[in-house]
């Protein structure tokens, strides 16, 4: 499964309809694909290109810039251990080493059960709480090796399921916009205002708010 499911295909088209230029939808569509598969499969990139009218190479050119868009299958929990300067001073490298031992994989790899992907990460802007790590982009501060073991046990047992959704569901792109309010793929050059602008009561000519 790599191309959009029929349900996601409908969502994809809705997303495209929000933008005056179809190409603008590339990143939201990448999020949608990642939400579906946990990563961006080649087929998904090809399909995104087809949907917005650009080549797969251009989709990949965009997607490959973003660290958070994964090109390889990713575990249910993405563990990013920071080793930038503050964390490095406060034991980030030791924490990463411990994590590798505990999970039995090197940084950058996924455990055999598909539960954890471990990554060495650049600064997470939590320098005051070093060493820090993120699980699916949720912060854990001042993590000791013992804390890490507890965290892993809790995650594996599903005790943190309420606070940490599975990888791939970070982006909330599923806001439903009713079709009559969708902007449609109008040209920005043509001068036609998108539906949501013309309909908007806040933008009447006299500036009043009816």
């Amino acid at each position, binding site marked *: 499964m790599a191309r959009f499911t029929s349900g996601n295909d409908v969502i994809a088209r809705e997303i495209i309809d929000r933008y005056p230029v179809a190409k603008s939808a590339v990143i939201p569509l990448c999020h949608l694909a990642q939400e579906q598969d946990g990563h961006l499969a*080649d087929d998904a*990139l*090809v399909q995104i290109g087809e949907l917005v009218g*650009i*080549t*797969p*190479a*251009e*989709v990949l050119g965009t997607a490959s810039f973003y660290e958070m868009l994964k090109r390889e299958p990713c575990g249910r929990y993405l563990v990013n251990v920071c080793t930038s300067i503050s964390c490095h001073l406060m034991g980030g490298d030791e924490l990463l080493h411990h994590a590798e031992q505990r999970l039995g994989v090197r940084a950058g790899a996924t455990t055999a059960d598909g539960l954890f992907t471990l990554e060495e990460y650049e600064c997470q802007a939590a320098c005051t709480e070093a060493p820090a790590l993120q699980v699916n982009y949720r912060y854990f501060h001042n993590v000791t090796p013992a804390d890490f073991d507890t965290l892993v046990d809790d995650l594996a047992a599903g005790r943190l399921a309420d606070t940490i959704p599975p990888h791939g569901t970070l982006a909330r792109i599923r806001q439903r916009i009713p079709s009559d309010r969708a902007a449609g793929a109008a040209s920005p050059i043509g001068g036609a205002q998108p539906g949501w602008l013309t309909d908007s009561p806040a933008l009447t000519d006299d500036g009043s708010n009816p």
Partner: protein
Amino acid sequence: MTDVKREVAVDTVSLTVNGAAVEAHKGQLVIDAADNAGIHIPRFCYHPRMKSVGMCRMCIVDIDTGRGPALQPACMIPVADGMVVDTLSESTKKAQDGVLEFLLINHPLDCPVCDKGGECPLQDNAYAFGPGESRFVEEKRHFEKPIPVSDLVLLDRERCILCDRCTRFARDVAGDAFIVFQERGGQTEVNTFPEHPFASYFSGNTVQICPVGALTAGPYRFRARPWDVEKDESTCTSCSFGCRITVEASRDEVIRRQGVDLDPVNWGWMCDKGRFDFDAMNASERLRTPLVRDGAAAREATWSEAIGRAADALRPALDGGADRVAVLGGARLTNEAAYTWAKLAKGVLGTDNVDCQLADGLPPEVVFGLPRATIDDACADGGTVLLLAPDIKEEVPVLFLRLRDAVLAHGVKVVELTPQSTSMTPLAAASLRYRPGEAAVVARLLGGGDGGGLSIDGDVSAARELLRGATRLTIVLGRPSIGESAATIVDAVGALLGGFPDAHVLTVLRRANVHGALDMGLTPGLLPGHVTIDAGRDWFTEAWGRVPAATGLDATGILAAAAEGKIDTLVLLGADPIADFPDHQLARTALDTVGTVIAVDVLPNASTALAHVVLPAAGPSEEAGTTTNLEGRVLTVAQKVTPAGTARADWHIAAELAFRLGHDLGLESIGGIWDEIERLAPSYAGLTVDIVRRAADRDGALMPIDEAQLAELDGARVTIASQRHRVDAGSATAANRAAAAESQEERQADELAAEAEQSDDEGKGVARGASTSQARPPLLSFAPPATATELPAVDAYGLRLVVSRTLYDNGTLNQHSPSIAGLARVACLRLNPADLARLGLDATATVEVSSVRGSLTLDAVADDRIPPGSAGIYTNHEGADPADLLDVHAPVTTIHIGTKS
């Protein structure tokens, strides 16, 4: 090359560059203004034919706009009045040092084994502007060494300096964004999408514009070093577009072609076929020795024997048998060779059964009889183009680049009239489908007619409004499908001109020098210089001693007559009717029936295999001369290498044949032939050898030549009348005499020598007759056909066949070019998905396709470019050829599909 755009500058701006006052036009970039003033600013990413991006920072110079000097990229800053630019300041120097030091951090210093070494902008700039040494001691970045990004182009990402030239070209110029920056950040690299190669017809251009050795072309890799290469400017003859190129050779072998920026034509671009198919000329199969056939087997022969055999077969033409001799082909030839062959065929043999087109072109009165447009006319700002042509990307690829740019950057509106979607369809303002054979029906609707009771749907009326609102309309005209007859297109032209009488026409006939060959009279009914046989009879009889009695047969007529045994000797001038004629059955029967087939060709093909005499000819870059492109621009081609084996120039072969027949054509050199063309062919009057040569350094000479152009090229004000020194020698101006004196003296000397040698037989030394009292004959004109071609009724169970070409196919040149041969595809039956479903076929069904002529077995594929009710088969693809289905006498071909049991 002159840059027209620079010449027509309106608002000028004055600035100072390195202390010198410089004039530039408003909006021009500092880097261009400096270039024009002869001050070179180093650059990597800037390319004059692409939008600036300011990626490489190499062109940063001190620019002072009144607020003190500041370092700014010269490729991003437009000139302004009073601007002071300093390209030599200390800060500029320091910045250049820094940029180069940074670029060389990751660039490997493998210049000794790099193909670019010796002609590398990075190498040159590092020497000229760099700091001399690097402080960088760490490890450079590493990538897998060259990865193939396409079948022809390899990419070494370690050498890449990320200038964005190739990716910009792919996206902005070619529209094939298959190579893109990826992993942007510290690991930015150019790459393709996995399993999606850079399959662009224009991929070779990225190699040429790469400022380092990151992109290299497979056919050139490790073949030569730049200092071993000798280059000459020439013109590409892989199609009729006339891209200006350099031909580069080492050890007497062509090893590379590169584009030259000719402003009115190719802008420096080439297609991959033109760039790489030269290696066919180096192929081991190349014809190097004359062959003669006794019975079944061909054997090598001496030139003397082979020419003797050929002359024997042609000799009956001299004694009243002219109608039983025919000449097919000639589009491969230079203008000079085409003229020599026309003179041999029409002036010596007296046959008018001569055709350089193989029923896949247009009648000459359409090519020459209508007001012609240039490529620039079609692409100029705000124009409108009506495309009634084959897919130009497949047949004349660089015209596609020019028209694409015209649509995207110059507001040109394209209305397309085609039996199937083409690569121009996404760019067209309106794209209309006509049922094969019925172009005229839609053309009449567009032209304002009622269309014979047909209702006008939205598309047609929108297109009509567009065309009516056009201030300048160019019809780009060709054969959209060779599955329909030329007559159906001529009908459509008549209808269009009825509605838009001011339209100009740009003909897209694909074959290399077909426009020049038509011009030189290698077509029935015409003599050199756009003159009909009747109009030019007296003029040319006096010059040549003989012209054909009446209009002869075209290719279809010749082959039909041959099939009926009415042709004894058929000369194939680089023509391969068995593969290229749209009707295989007719071509095969004809060649089997003809008494003697004489093939003059460069490579073996299906027709040379049947020939009784094969004369090996010099190929491209082996024979000098001129070629005429599709807009009528006369451009020089250079001889860079010696012909393979004992192959001879085409015009030598004609002259030798004439000599064996007891006639002297009086043509002894390329210059001498051109002199005679200028003197005799009315449309070339005034275009002397000197002017052609001078024009070659500029934009070429555009036919029909006019006084203004002549004056410009001649450097002095002369008139066409004054150029006709032979006709009216008294009125020649001094300037003209000076210009023409040298060649004229040569010619007169040659003629005197020739005269002394000759006996006084009639018909010999025929060129001498031209000092004459005859008026130059009038030129050809087009009259729309009085009656429309009758089409068969639509057959509800059949599909109308669309036969079109692709750039890479099984053509002789492609097949023998190692770099191109592998790109040909397997033939298939292209059906609209709706038809596929209607016929109950799945997408990979093998079907039997039959017409009244024959049947083929091939795979059906869904292709929504084909409209419902039609079916497409590409010609000359592997496996099956639609020419087996075509009857060349029928206006359209209907096919029926049966499943293969």
